């Protein structure tokens, strides 16, 4: 137990000092925290509940748009902002900027959660591949719709508010966002860690294993499914709002409702790490991000070919992921005792 706490403290310390040890990689590590949030929350559906969704990107994009819209709309007319391409005409003062950011991030969590609750009843009634394809359609439709709305810049997208002048330089800005991302990641992790130990986590696993039986046991499965989706949507929405601010530019199909990048990444990361485990998505996200940042540049435009190949390889050959592999190798670490004599007897029987 003490070992475990020591491990957590080490990781926490790494997260806190990382921007000073690797100052050049601040943005990359911030994006890594975001990716961890995405894969952790995907795993609530995909791993724990057995509902493989392609649609969590919907909440990511929604959060991105809502956060920036609030940040701007609180102080300036939104339509003029997007029409003029952003910072040229309006400038946030520092208090305005931070007020806007706080309000924006709060709403970036709440509104996607409400959307999830609203559409959840209809969509979570679908099962298996129907759910997967329905959510895939939802994510793409949202991107296409956002590309047609003039208020948020239509196909050209919009800029999120730039860092206010007068307080620090871009270094401070990236440190600031780094710590928000880190704190959000830690919150998500701790929240889910707690949630999986409660009845909620057990019910999610029951739904994954056999939904009909769970229902027959008297569990209102729909209620739990919606709750799970709402939780995911909340954290993904805030992550989206942060991402929009870090990139500084929101484009409907490429960054916000980016089914081809983040939408696929979150599925791939969770599966790579091992779905249905707490640490799997985290490890998967870190491994994937290191792979992505380390090798992306060598592919020179062949990234998506590599991504496609990676998906196929991971899905076909390692559907259990890294955690599943470790579990097979060292089952005693997971509290699965194996009776050595019994095992030998079985091997001899074969």
């Amino acid at each position, binding site marked *: 137990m003490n070992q475990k706490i020591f491990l957590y403290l080490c990781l926490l310390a790494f997260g806190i000092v990382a921007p000073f040890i690797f100052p050049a990689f601040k943005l990359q590590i911030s994006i890594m925290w975001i990716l961890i949030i995405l894969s952790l929350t995907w795993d609530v559906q995909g791993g724990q509940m057995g509902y493989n969704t392609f649609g969590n990107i919907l909440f990511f994009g929604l959060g991105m748009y809502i956060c920036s819209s609030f940040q701007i709309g609180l102080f300036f007319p939104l339509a003029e902002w997007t029409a003029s391409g952003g910072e040229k005409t309006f400038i946030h003062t520092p208090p305005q900027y931070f007020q806007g950011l706080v309000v924006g991030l709060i709403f970036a969590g709440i509104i996607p959660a409400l959307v999830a609750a609203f559409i959840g009843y209809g969509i979570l009634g679908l099962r298996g591949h129907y759910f997967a394809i329905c959510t895939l359609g939802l994510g793409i439709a949202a991107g296409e719709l956002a590309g047609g709305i003039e208020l948020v810049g239509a196909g050209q997208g919009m800029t999120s508010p730039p860092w206010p002048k007068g307080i620090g330089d871009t270094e401070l800005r990236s440190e600031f966002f780094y710590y928000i991302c880190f704190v959000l990641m830690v919150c998500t992790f701790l929240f889910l860690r707690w949630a999986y130990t409660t009845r909620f986590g057990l019910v999610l696993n029951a739904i994954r294993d056999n939904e009909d039986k769970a229902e027959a046991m008297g569990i209102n499965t729909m209620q739990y499914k919606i709750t799970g989706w709402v939780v995911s949507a909340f954290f993904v929405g805030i992550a989206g709002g942060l991402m929009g601010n870090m990139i500084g530019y929101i484009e409907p199909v490429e960054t916000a409702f980016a089914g081809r990048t983040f939408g696929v990444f979150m599925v791939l990361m969770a599966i790579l790490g091992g779905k249905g485990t707490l640490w799997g998505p985290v490890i998967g996200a870190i491994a994937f991000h290191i792979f992505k940042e380390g090798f992306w540049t060598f592919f020179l435009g062949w990234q998506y070919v590599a991504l496609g190949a990676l*998906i196929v390889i991971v899905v076909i050959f390692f559907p259990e992921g890294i955690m599943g592999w470790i579990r097979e190798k060292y089952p005693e670490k997971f509290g699965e005792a194996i009776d050595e004599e019994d095992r030998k007897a079985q091997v001899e029987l074969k």
Partner: protein
Amino acid sequence: MVQASLDGILLGILFALIAYGMALQWGVMNIINIAQGELVILGGYIAYFMYVAGIHPAFGVIVAPIIMYFVGWSLYKTIIFRVVDRDLFISILATFGISILTQQLMNFIFGSDVVVAQSNFGTTFLFNYMVTLPNAKIFAAGISIFFALLLVLYMRRSKLGRAIRATAQNARAAKILGVDTESVYAATFGINAALCGVAGSLIAITFTLHPYVGLPYTVRSFMIVIVAGLGNLPGVALSGMGLGVFEEFSDYIFGTEFRIAAVFLLLVLILVYRRFKLSRKREYLK
């Protein structure tokens, strides 16, 4: 109005052809192929390059299926056979990976420009020049119907067709009775790819091609199949035409920039509607 309906019906026949391929391999192999649309676009590029080489692109409907059959066959032999008996989501994700891969490869090899193969078929005017119909579209619909009927006949009469139908009914029993299900699966996937090739080369002469427009074709065919049901051919044709008409009218009402959004939203609506209808009987979509 008449214009939009006619356009929609001709377009819908093309969609139905793609959906037919999807229904075939879904029914036989229990796989949902997200890369279906990419196979269509790949077929389209074959016709386009025939056009570039100076051959009339309409001959693409003969060349494209032959090439695409081998593409599909080799795709099966390299990747798909590993996911046939596994969870459906694995096959969805694996074919999604294939779809991303092919999109990007096409982008590199063929360039990211929107291309079109000119067929120079001329135009037919109906009702005193009120309605214009490009002959290419009529040609496309005709060829689609021809290939669909050909395939139906083939499935009914030939030995392979019988083997495919047997495997679809019960793969294990078919295996016991001496059907080489492995090669039946490969052939099914090849036939599906060939159908996509035909549809793609028809799309090349009637519409435009672009490496990234594959996914809407996948979703359309998926939608047609779930509305019609597996193994219901007249249903596939009808719902294909219905979808075509819906799209033309949505262009009319919401504008062309919302066309893709309308298609995807329709998919969501249909699925949710079916779910509510079934949940009254305490059932769900299987």
